[in-house]
């Protein structure tokens, strides 16, 4: 228990005390605290257990960089796992728990894996869990229970999430010194510029500039307040605190997530920006030594920020291990705040005279050219051993806090998302954004400013931000003295990636095993693959891997960060698209009627369609049999409004149709309909439909429901590209028309009973003809076409009239035995007639001849796909051809999707001769029937095969027969 709250200082509101619970214990903090600062102030040492070895861990960093302190916050349906305690705002009633430990974070049984550590180096799982093979299901359960961090809540998320699209002229990511300077300069240059400034913290000002720094002659905090006030006053500027940019995508699209209070929990912004200024600051690097994961080891800048912002002191007595001058500033600030500094250990040989003088004045022991070799302590740092770099006698210090400062790395992940390159700057020993990345690109790239560009001094940050805001070319980085390389080791376990328990030894092992590229090292060791995405570990890992191969870090490069840069919740990505709104649903004009009359609705693509209409004391299969049987015996009514419909006008429509379909249309007379089949250019059947010629130059095409948009695009492509110059106008009218089919032997009588103002006898309205006029007072277009094989009429009305027409037909239909029927009965009827459907028989691998359509293929004209039909493989006699199947035992059902094999003898692999494409119980035949594609099927009619379904364990002997089971001559259609 070494952390404590300083009696004064910090930017917390001490008058507002907040109660919270951590791991079941009650604590208090103040308004303005994060969970991390409050835990430090309460002296909590162990906050988490590490992923693999379950080692006790404390807080290491200040904000989004934190690798260790992952906690679960909230309870019930609002429980959120894997939050960084450093980013959790302390609010009254907060409940948080450690993860990955049992029974408690202070005593975790799984720490026993630490003893097994020698057997669990990186990549151990590639070499274990292999024998015996049969034990894998057991291993899998073990691994699943042991792996993973955090528990997802089991209940549905009760919160709402919002989603906004926004276009801006300038997006500034990061509201620190450089970012605010950029925004102000841009607003001053042109007050009409639409600017969006985002920062992940609740207050603007960032983390990189000390409150006491002097900017433009004022204290930094005053400068920030002025900048924020000035920007807030500009109408075209939006400031978004608590907003994280998680990814940059093509076309300068940036994804942001804003934390909200109120009716929504988070809001995702998708921002299109003409220009982007990246002012995301820099991350401090740790230095390595043995036992550098012990609670009490922290980044120097983090300890400084906890002290200055929250008055939360991480310990009482610190050793500062720093290879960067900024570490000294942290030491001096902490000493002023009441932390004793036992020593400053600096691996550099030369330390500036000014710094030496300040150390002496403060009474701080300074050990140049030294490094920390290892930390000591049981559950918390209690001391460390220091040794000269060149070798020599060790010195031991007593301390409860070890602060490391290894230099700064620009937080440039978004720069690489955008496709920018990083270059290694030897002076900074870091990768910085390369401003020349965008040379030769059409669009303005992202400009990095301030610490994100490797500029670490106040004047430089201010200048680089202002230049970028004004749209000037980026300033170069001023040269500074070369910094020493990162120190790479110590005695005992040196952790490189704290979250994933990756040590220096692991990386060395990976290199020894032949993984040389940094991308391979990353994936083999899981370095940088945690929720912190290697913010602290990345460059250090590169240096270790490079050293193991005798290379310089610049030669090895860096693994490429990709979106998201920090975790994004599914809620934020889904926005309002959840539950019934998760994807658009299309309904027909009769939808309300279907739902009110017992329809079992199903999704067919985006459409909601009735499968069948339930009646009391009737199962679903019985309903389908009843509905289909009624169509064949009396008359049925079904909703076909979902069919694709296209209006075609002009003198060249027939030419367009001839090019699109395998059969010809020029000869189609006005008032007549013709069935057509379209192919893709590779010869495979694409779609089928009905074309009606209304007048010489006005035509009406229908397509299958699922292909409506595709066929429209296809026709436009022919018109605009393949056959340019055709005088044709194509207009999609799927939505304009509702449609219903009246089908069955009594269909004509029913149609006549509706008293249309046109004749409907067989001569006036024969099969494949059109009639237009009014039925009652509703204008209607009637096509005598049939999908059921019975006498049938498709009645098209304006969508707004369709329900009235439907009701009119139902009312008149009672005396004819009319029943509505759904898509299941529709399928039964068409399977009985051997009619193919795209997606079942026409699955993209079937040619016209495979489906028995060879006679439809014109030899007199060019059409889409014609030239593919002559390919040798496409005329082979053993191609899979459409046939019908009947079970030899007439009471047996034929399994859906079954494979067709010759017989059940013989050892695997058994030759598969085809598959079942559609199955139904046939009310007409009183048995199960199917359609199938079988190799050489047409020559094998009458033979038996076996329909085998290993998934369900069924094998059913079947006989091959012609695919048309009912009325093969088509007499019912034409009568």
């Amino acid at each position, binding site marked *: 228990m070494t952390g404590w709250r300083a009696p004064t200082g910090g930017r917390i509101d001490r008058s507002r005390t907040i109660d919270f619970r951590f791991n079941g214990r009650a604590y208090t903090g103040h308004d303005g605290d994060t969970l991390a600062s409050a835990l430090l102030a309460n002296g909590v040492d162990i906050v988490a257990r590490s992923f693999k070895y379950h080692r006790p861990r404390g807080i290491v960093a200040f904000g989004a960089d934190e690798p260790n302190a992952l906690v679960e916050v909230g309870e019930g349906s609002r429980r959120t796992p894997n939050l960084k305690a450093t980013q959790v705002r302390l609010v009254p009633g907060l409940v948080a728990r450690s993860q990955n430990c049992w029974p408690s974070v202070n005593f975790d049984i799984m720490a026993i894996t630490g003893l097994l550590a020698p057997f669990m180096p990186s990549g151990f799982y590639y070499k274990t869990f292999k024998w015996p093979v049969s034990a894998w299901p057991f291993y899998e359960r073990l691994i699943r229970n042991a792996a993973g961090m955090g528990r997802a809540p089991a209940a549905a998320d009760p919160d709402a999430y919002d989603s906004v699209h926004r276009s801006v002229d300038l997006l500034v990511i990061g509201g620190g010194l450089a970012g605010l300077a950029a925004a102000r300069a841009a607003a001053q240059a042109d007050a009409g510029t639409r600017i969006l400034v985002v920062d992940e913290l609740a207050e603007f000002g960032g983390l990189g500039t000390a409150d006491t720094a002097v900017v433009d002659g004022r204290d930094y905090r005053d400068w920030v307040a002025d900048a924020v006030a000035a920007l807030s006053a500009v109408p075209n500027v939006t400031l978004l605190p608590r907003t994280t940019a998680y990814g940059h995508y093509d076309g300068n699209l940036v994804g942001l997530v804003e934390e909200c209070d109120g009716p929504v929990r988070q809001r995702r912004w998708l921002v299109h920006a003409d220009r982007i200024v990246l002012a995301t600051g820099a991350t401090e690097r740790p230095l390595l030594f043995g036992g550098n994961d012990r609670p009490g080891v922290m980044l120097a800048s983090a300890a400084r920020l906890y002290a200055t912002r929250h008055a939360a002191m991480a310990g009482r007595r610190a050793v500062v291990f720093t290879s960067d001058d900024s570490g000294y500033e942290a030491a001096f600030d902490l000493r002023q705040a009441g932390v004793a500094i036992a020593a400053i250990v600096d691996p550099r040989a030369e330390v500036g005279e000014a710094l030496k003088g300040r150390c002496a004045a403060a009474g701080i022991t300074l050990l140049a050219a030294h490094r920390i070799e290892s930390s000591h302590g049981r559950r918390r740092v209690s001391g460390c051993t220091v040794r000269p770099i060149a070798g020599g006698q060790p010195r031991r210090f007593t301390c409860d806090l070890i602060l490391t400062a290894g230099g700064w790395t620009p937080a440039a992940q978004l720069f690489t998302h955008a496709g920018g390159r990083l270059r290694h700057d030897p002076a900074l020993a870091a990768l910085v954004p390369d401003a020349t990345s965008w040379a030769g690109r059409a669009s303005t790239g992202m400009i990095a400013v301030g610490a994100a560009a490797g500029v670490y001094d106040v004047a430089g940050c201010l200048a680089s931000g202002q230049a970028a805001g004004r749209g000037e070319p980026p300033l170069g980085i001023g040269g500074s003295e070369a910094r020493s390389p990162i120190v790479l080791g110590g005695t005992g376990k040196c952790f490189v990636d704290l979250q994933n328990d990756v040590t220096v030894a692991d990386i060395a092992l990976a290199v020894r095993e032949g993984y040389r590229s940094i991308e391979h090292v990353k994936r083999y060791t899981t370095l940088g693959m945690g929720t912190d995405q290697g913010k602290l570990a990345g460059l250090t890992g590169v240096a270790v891997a490079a050293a193991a191969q005798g290379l310089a870090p610049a030669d090895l490069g860096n693994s490429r960060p990709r979106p998201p840069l920090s975790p994004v919740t599914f809620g934020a990505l889904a926005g309002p698209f959840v539950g019934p709104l998760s994807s658009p649903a299309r309904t027909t004009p009769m939808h309300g009627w279907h739902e009110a009359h017992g329809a079992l609705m199903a999704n067919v693509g985006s459409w909601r369609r009735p499968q069948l209409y339930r009646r009391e004391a009737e199962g679903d299969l019985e309903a389908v049999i009843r509905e289909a049987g009624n169509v064949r015996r009396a008359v049925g009514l079904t909703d076909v409004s979902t069919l694709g419909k296209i209006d075609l006008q002009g003198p060249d429509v027939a030419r367009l149709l001839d090019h699109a379909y395998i059969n010809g249309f020029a000869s189609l007379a006005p008032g007549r309909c013709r069935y057509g089949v379209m192919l893709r250019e590779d010869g495979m059947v694409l779609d089928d439909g009905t074309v009606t010629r209304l007048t010489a130059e006005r035509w009406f095409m229908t397509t299958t429901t699922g292909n409506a948009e595709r066929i429209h695009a296809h026709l436009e492509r022919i018109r605009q*590209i393949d056959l340019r110059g055709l005088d044709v106008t194509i207009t999609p009218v799927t939505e304009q028309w509702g449609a219903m089919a009246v089908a069955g032997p009594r269909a004509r009588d029913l149609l006549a009973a509706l008293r249309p103002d046109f004749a409907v006898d067989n001569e006036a309205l024969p099969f494949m003809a059109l009639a237009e006029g009014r039925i009652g007072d509703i204008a209607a277009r009637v096509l005598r076409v049939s999908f059921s094989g019975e006498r049938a009429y498709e009645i098209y009305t304006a969508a707004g009239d369709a329900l009235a027409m439907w009701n009119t037909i139902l009312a008149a239909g009672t005396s004819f035995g009319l029943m509505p029927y759904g898509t299941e009965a529709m399928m039964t009827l068409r399977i009985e007639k051997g009619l193919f459907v795209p997606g079942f028989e026409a699955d993209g691998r079937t040619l016209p001849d495979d489906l028995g359509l060879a006679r439809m293929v014109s030899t007199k004209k060019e059409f889409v796909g014609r030239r*593919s039909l*002559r390919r040798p493989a496409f005329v082979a006699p053993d191609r899979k051809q459409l046939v019908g199947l009947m079970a030899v035992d007439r009471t047996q059902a034929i399994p859906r999707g079954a494979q067709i094999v010759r017989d059940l003898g013989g050892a695997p692999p058994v030759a598969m001769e085809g598959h079942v494409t559609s199955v139904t119980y046939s009310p007409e035949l009183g048995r199960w029937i199917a359609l199938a594609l079988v190799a050489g099927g047409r020559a094998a009619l009458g033979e038996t095969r076996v329909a085998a379904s290993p998934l369900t364990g069924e094998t059913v002997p079947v006989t091959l027969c012609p695919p048309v089971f009912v009325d093969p001559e088509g007499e019912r259609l034409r009568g």
Partner: protein
Amino acid sequence: MRIPCPNCGSRSLAEFSYGGAALDRPPGDIGPSPETAPAWDDFVYRRDNPAGPLRELWFHAAGCRAWFVATRDTRSLEFIAEVTP
């Protein structure tokens, strides 16, 4: 991702359908022959995979319903030019 439609300007990818590489359809003839067959098979099955500008067909399905040819650099993923055919 945004796509620059010649009629409507820069619009979201969701408004478009992709039409593949912008190749010329080999001229039609009634009888396929060994001479013309390779050109047809190339058109149907073979595509270049350049690291650089690629001419592609896009259809603005949710907008103006126009097909156009856009040139896009496959390395930077930027659109360079677009024309209605």
